[in-house]
């Protein structure tokens, strides 16, 4: 069933660069459209993500984090800049490199860290781990481990918001769904199906490619056509493609992305945005990074989004060295505390294995009870029917 959506006239230009205000940043000026308070807030958020990741890596070395762990360091300006351009109830969804998005969306770092540590207090009760950050209240729809598989979900989320607004009228405003994906995810079939459907149905969704140059060890050019202009893939789906080249500058990311968001909210049409960025660390914790050169890493390290903004603010006289130091120290303390609490928290109890599998009676057979082996007994089921928790 298709909702009776009104089709906007087909756009003439299918791709465009968002008018860049990058020169200002390069000159060390702080743009007037964002007041100093806002900029300091973004700086704080980026610092928080960076510090969170530093401590996460340590915790990983100390075997407090299980499984895989994908560090967001380097890409902070993308999550912080784009999320700052959204309304609080705009749905967002991402893949497994999700700590940054969760924190930028305002998730309590403790829930995030506890999840990494597999503790019951975590945002997924310690049952998901690093790749599965969810926060219903903050309209964060995950955190998904299968590359590209979140993209059709974004189309669905956008479909729902439009349906609620235009068909069943349970919502009185347009919500813009933002879907983050990596450059590697572009190669998955599901992504193209998602784009096509979003285009056909005119859905208010923005697909944001966080182009950090690599999908694991495979550089963009080795894995994808149109490697130097990924945003142009939008053309095949009748959408507008945008390029944000200065992805290491949170102000530019925010300002350029905001324009796209405003337009999407107005027209309810989908967009594809490519943001150029870099992950400072390996793909996951066990990546020797043989596929990229030291020089390349150095080049990008010099564009550290945190240095970028703090320098600008200090230069513009909006922030003193002391204030910056204080901010950093505060955040360090905050995250240290989070690590401590999370490492002391309890893992989920054993019978949690059978909770949240589905509602009502758990288990595939009617009338089954918690397997006794979960209570230390082997496998025989008891007679009484136990409801789910």
């Amino acid at each position, binding site marked *: 069933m298709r909702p009776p959506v009104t089709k906007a006239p087909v756009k003439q230009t299918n791709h465009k660069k968002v008018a860049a205000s990058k020169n200002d940043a390069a000159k060390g000026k702080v743009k007037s459209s964002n007041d100093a308070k806002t900029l300091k807030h973004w700086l704080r958020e980026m610092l928080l993500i960076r510090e969170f990741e530093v401590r996460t890596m340590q915790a990983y070395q100390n075997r407090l984090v*299980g*499984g*895989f762990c994908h560090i967001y360091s380097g890409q902070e300006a993308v999550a912080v800049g784009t999320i700052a351009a959204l309304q609080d109830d705009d749905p967002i969804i991402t893949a497994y490199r999700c700590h940054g998005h969760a924190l930028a969306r305002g998730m309590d770092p403790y829930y995030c860290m506890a999840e990494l540590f*597999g*503790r019951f207090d975590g945002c997924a009760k*310690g*049952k*998901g*781990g*690093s*790749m*599965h950050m969810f926060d219903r209240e903050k309209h964060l729809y995950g955190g998904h*481990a*299968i*590359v*590209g*598989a979140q993209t059709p979900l974004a189309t669905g989320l956008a479909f729902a918001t439009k349906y609620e607004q235009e068909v069943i009228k349970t919502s009185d405003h347009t919500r813009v769904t933002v879907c983050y994906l990596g450059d*590697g*995810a572009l*190669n*998955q*079939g*599901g992504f193209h199906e998602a784009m096509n459907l979003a285009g056909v149905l005119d859905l208010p969704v923005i697909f944001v490619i966080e182009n950090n140059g690599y*999908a*694991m*060890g*495979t550089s963009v050019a*080795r*894995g*994808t056509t149109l490697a130097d202009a990924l945003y142009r893939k939008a053309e095949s789906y009748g959408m507008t493609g945008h390029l944000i080249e200065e992805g290491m500058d949170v102000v530019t990311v925010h300002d350029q992305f905001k324009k796209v968001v405003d337009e999407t909210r107005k027209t309810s049409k989908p967009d594809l945005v490519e943001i150029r960025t870099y992950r400072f660390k390996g793909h996951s914790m066990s990546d020797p990074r*043989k*596929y990229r050169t030291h020089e390349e890493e150095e080049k990008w390290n010099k564009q550290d989004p945190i240095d970028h903004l703090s320098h600008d603010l200090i230069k513009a006289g909006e922030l003193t060295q002391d204030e910056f130091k204080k901010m950093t120290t505060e955040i360090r303390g905050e995250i240290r505390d989070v690590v401590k609490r999370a490492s002391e928290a309890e*893992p*989920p109890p*054993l019978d*949690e*294995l*059978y909770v949240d*599998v589905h509602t009502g009676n*758990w*288990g*595939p*057979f009617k009338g089954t009870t918690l*397997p006794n*082996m*979960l209570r230390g*007994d*082997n*496998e025989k089921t008891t007679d009484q029917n136990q409801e789910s928790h």
Partner: protein
Amino acid sequence: MANLTLVQAINLALIQEMEEDDRIILLGEDVGKNGGVFRVTEGLWQRFGGDRVVDSPLAESGILGTSIGLAMAGLRPIPEIQFEGFLGPAYDQICTHAARMRTRTRGAYTVPLTIRVPVGGGIHAPELHSDSPETIYTHTPGLKVVMPASPYDAKGLLISAIRDPDPVIFFEPKRIYRAFREEVPEDEYTIPIGEARVVQEGEQITMVSWGASVIQCMNAIENCNHSVELIDLRTIAPMDMQAIEQSVKKTGRCVVVHEAPKTLGLGAEIASRIMEHCFLHLEAPVQRVAGFDTIMPYYKLELDYMPDAARITKAVEEVSAY
């Protein structure tokens, strides 16, 4: 002879087969330059070049579909899927094309394909990186499903799989990739697909398992007062029911051990066939020690999910006391 890990044994088999048959092509995500996520294909790109060890885009459906095309045209592709959880996007190609092509074309086209897939839990990875989906593919006619539990078997079975004229899913239990070493002949040899291995002979209880669980069974048997016969299936499809039957007719008792969820896991099929073929020989109901009917949990509960020596021992006690 060389003392090799399972990873090294597979690596060696690939090299030797590729040297012998230039129709063999490897493809997958980061299998080339990087040598694969588990470094199974380490050094092969350097040795055979990018035309034969192809770094593919991040696209499992494409990897599998392309491999099927290659195979139908007469080549011998060996695609790698990085983790069993990523078989999802490839599932369509495997089950709608690879498995059915011979039947659909009445034998005109075959799909000599070996799909290498790391499988199972025990490495502290989360869901989708720790699953045991062998039942799904065993339930799909047209596919062969292999899962070695030792370096020696891994090499011999992989060579058989590569030379097999039909599609084989070659599951590699990641928990034992580097867990232990074993003497592996340097020369090529094959282990027939469809033949179980009696790991240890015994008189009182038959234990059937495959993959990394075999090691758990061995651990359980070590401290066990009963005479247990351990059968490692090695090939899941086609399954060596004869070996199981022969043993159960001797022992009258059977415990099946697998990591996959219990319900409709292969233990169910095995138990049912034992009932069909050995009913009058049975002294006790067949016991299953398996994963729970829930999603593989994150690492804190992982080992509670997976069958271990303690749970296996309990099942052994129960069948013997029945």
